[in-house]
């Protein structure tokens, strides 16, 4: 690739980093696959090894669970970071900030939703699955570093939401409002199942006032903590992600076409 020189400073060609994907190396693909596998194995292990066990006697779940999910998310980030153009890299911190601000406000309210993935889904919709996944994971890590460390173990689940939003956009699910709603609900069900073990075994279902009330009510019907949290997660995430996808559909209609066109190469 040709490079240009300005005042003695060597600069890369702007086409190299700003708009186009760089090719994915075998190493990056292996990292992504190992990361995804680690998360799947961690989830499977949690289900199989602790099914039916009384929560109070299954205290050894939290550490391997957090470790598996976090390392998995980190490997996915490392495997995809070179693929994403600089223009999207420059955008991700702001997307993360929007997620953090909205998530923090909704988290302390009695609303049993999260609304902390609007910018993740928006980036997935505009810039594709890899950028969406990166935004999701980075949001949770940055949120953990600055205000609320409880979000860090959910980084893997957030990455999955961004990834699926990107694929939903590619498949044309953001063309009609009802399609966005269906895609959001589907992504919500998956996100609910993925996030439930962390919410149950690390945080005891207490991720928010609204969601916590649902867990307490479900436990009062005789459900175990894991079952109650899974039910609550699937319920809340389905509604939450359907709402988020709908909001992104509305926002997408408000974004000028010339802005959308800037992302056409990355999508």
């Amino acid at each position, binding site marked *: 690739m040709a490079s240009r020189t300005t005042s003695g400073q060597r600069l890369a060609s702007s086409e190299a980093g700003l708009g186009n994907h760089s090719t994915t190396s075998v190493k990056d693909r292996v990292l992504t696959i190992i990361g995804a596998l680690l998360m799947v194995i961690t989830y499977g292990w949690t289900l199989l090894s602790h099914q039916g066990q009384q929560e109070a006697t299954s205290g050894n779940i939290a550490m391997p669970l957090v470790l598996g999910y976090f390392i998995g998310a980190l490997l996915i980030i490392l495997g995809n970071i070179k693929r994403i153009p600089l*223009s999207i890299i420059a955008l991700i911190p702001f997307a993360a900030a929007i997620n953090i601000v909205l998530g923090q406000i909704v988290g302390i309210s009695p609303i049993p939703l999260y609304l902390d993935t609007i910018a993740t889904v928006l980036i997935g919709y505009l810039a594709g699955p890899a950028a969406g996944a990166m935004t999701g994971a980075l949001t949770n890590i940055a949120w953990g570093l600055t205000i609320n460390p409880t979000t860090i173990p959910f980084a893997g689940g957030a990455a999955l939401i961004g990834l699926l939003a990107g694929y939903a956009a590619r498949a044309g699910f953001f063309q009609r409002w009802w399609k966005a709603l269906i895609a959001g609900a589907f992504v919500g069900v998956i996100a609910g199942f993925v996030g439930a073990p962390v919410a149950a075994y690390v945080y005891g279902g207490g991720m928010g006032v609204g969601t916590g009330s649902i867990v307490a009510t479900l436990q009062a019907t005789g459900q175990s903590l894991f079952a109650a949290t899974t039910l609550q997660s699937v319920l809340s995430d389905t509604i939450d992600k359907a709402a988020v996808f709908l909001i992104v559909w509305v926002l997408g209609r408000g974004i000028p076409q010339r802005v959308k066109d800037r992302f056409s190469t990355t999508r």
Partner: protein
Amino acid sequence: MRIDRFSINPKTWLVLGLSAVPLALISLDIGARAVLLLLLICVVAWSGKLHAYGRYVLLGVGPVAVTAFCIQAVSFVGAQTIYAQWTPTSFLNFRLSKEGILYGATLGLQILNFGTACAIAFLPVSAGELRWALTDWKLPSRLIYLLVTSMNAPVLLSRYVGLVRESQVRRGLDDSTVFSRSKLALTSIGTLINLILLEHEDRAQSLEQRGLDRPGERVFLRTYPDTQLQRVLRWIVGACGICTCIWGILA
């Protein structure tokens, strides 16, 4: 030899905190968790960040710990010693139980320990120090940029929000009541997103000019004190952290 908190290298804080995270999450009884929390709070106090830690707990881990405790205290499944009971319908049975309180307290302490371990890693380390430490550990420059900028992004975002609000006021839009201010806030979200999207290519060009992807050593204007003792301490604490992880998985 006297060690004061200002002579602690950012890498030492990060290793200390990150090694405490697995310890915070392994299976311990309630007494051990309480002792661990006290120890971790002592480290935070020594770092001089107790005030920031208070805010960190109040906004982040505190509400989660309290909610987890309340859930288990009133609806723990399989409780034997019941102090009070409330059955609003035939299928709903809230029971304040001894086992629930104990399990809720254990969970609450686990959450507080986890948050405090993270606080040790991140509160004494500024964004610049984090960038320096991660660069020294040879992490990808893009990842470092994303992490550090994400930490500062909420502040930049509030500046953008201020700009949008100011332009709304100057155009004479009503902001006299809570309702009209809420309406303005909702309409400003779309403007804010467009503003950020329009600016991203300029930012990318700036990153390229700054040589974000350029290989080679990074030179920092400021370096941080490091000693042989701290280097040895980091290796020992890091090894202990890894051993805790392995023990936690195998146990």
